[in-house]
């Protein structure tokens, strides 16, 4: 309530037509989510027919940021999803299908259209969630450093990855006697991005609630032929190993899921 009052009073400082909102503390959760097609109950089935049983999966992450696209000069960056720009076909659900077959966030297409000088700038940062036990259900409430927002259009959420530790045992499914262990300690520096649509400026003074989930699925180990990789019952897991070179990019491609509610949409 005090924050709302503060926000209401601070509105006097804004020009007419410039709205603002209050960002509530963000609910954050993280867990490996194999999905029904891959969940063997205690192990994850891969597309190559292996069962990966983890005894540890810890993901260390840094800060979380809400970002706005700023700068550029290539035409403003906006586009109509019903009329995709060159290089894209279908657009729906916050993504467009590129000619190359990939799904690209609206925000990244807008940045591309806005020209080379455009860049995403963090306007709100949240306390780092820290070290996440992905085999449990890590959860935290993250307080924003700037809960009062003014006349912004936040289009990207970014979570900084720092590193991953993952260990376990792999066998074939159905079991044919093959078994190997692995112990991966991977410095994994990069950004986990998700599209966001949070325009403000209508003067509605909304309270905005975000829930963010980091939930890698059961396809992380696809295409790995563990029997071919294993040496003396262990899968090599150094930085240049096939395991590290496969899992690293896939983990950095995990897109946090975001659920947003705002009081002026009720």
């Amino acid at each position, binding site marked *: 309530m005090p924050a709302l009052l503060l926000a209401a009073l601070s509105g006097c400082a804004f020009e007419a037509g410039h709205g603002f909102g209050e960002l509530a503390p963000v609910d954050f959760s993280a867990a490996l989510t194999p*999905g*029904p*097609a*891959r*969940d*063997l109950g205690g192990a994850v*089935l891969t*597309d190559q*027919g292996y069962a990966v049983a983890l005894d540890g999966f810890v993901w260390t992450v840094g800060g979380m940021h809400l970002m706005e696209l700023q700068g550029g000069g290539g035409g403003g960056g906006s586009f109509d*999803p*019903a009329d*995709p720009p060159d290089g894209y*076909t*279908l*657009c*729906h*659900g*916050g*993504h467009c*299908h590129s000619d190359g*077959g*990939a*799904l690209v966030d*609206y925000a990244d297409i807008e940045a591309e259209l806005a020209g080379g000088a455009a860049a995403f700038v963090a306007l709100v940062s949240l306390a780092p969630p820290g070290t996440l036990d992905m085999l449990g259900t890590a959860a935290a409430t993250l307080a924003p450093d700037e809960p009062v927002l003014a006349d912004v259009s936040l289009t990207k959420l970014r979570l900084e990855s720092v590193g991953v530790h993952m260990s376990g045992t792999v066998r074939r*499914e*159905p079991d044919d006697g093959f078994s190997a262990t692995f112990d991966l300690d991977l410095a994994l520096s990069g950004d986990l991005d*998700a*599209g*966001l*649509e949070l325009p403000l400026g209508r003067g509605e003074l909304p309270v905005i609630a975000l829930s963010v989930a980091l939930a890698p*699925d*059961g*396809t992380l180990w696809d295409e790995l032929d563990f029997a071919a990789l294993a040496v003396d019952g262990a899968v090599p897991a150094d930085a240049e190993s096939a395991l590290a070179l496969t899992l690293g990019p896939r983990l950095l491609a995990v897109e946090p899921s*975001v*659920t*947003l*509610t705002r009081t002026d*949409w*009720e």
Partner: protein
Amino acid sequence: MNMRLTISALPASLPLLPLLALAALSGCAAGKEEEDPLAHACEVIADAGTAITAGADIDSAPGIQIGDTPYTVTLVPGAASYVSVNVSGDTAAILFMGTADIAQTLYQDGADVGLSEGAPDDLCPEDVPEHYDVDLHTAGTWTFELGPAAVSEVWLLLHDAGAHVDEQ
């Protein structure tokens, strides 16, 4: 109101039911009704449709049809499974899956040509967690590889892209 960001580009005040109805009718022009395949998939997700058993290899893959009727496919336990479709010419279709991470790849007359990246059906992402835009660009037999999977059967629908492509 809880609202997933994946559909937040749509007017937030629109309830889902009218949205589905709108989508279902959006292909209608000059008296011709053409249902949006994404809306159709949501409507038939509860229908088991035609029951078939997948083949254990490409050569034994049973045929499915592009159309409005879904299939419940019994998968080969612990191994890859296959279903095929024959087309007589350039055909744009959409493969809808009732379970994610089962569709693996696509073969054209036995050659692996891959699948595009899957995405949830915007109109019912919980029920239809994946759909793939499939360009069956030449006449012949196209075969989908499914699994291996931890489930014994999967719901799928192969629908003409039709109105979906026209509108986008």
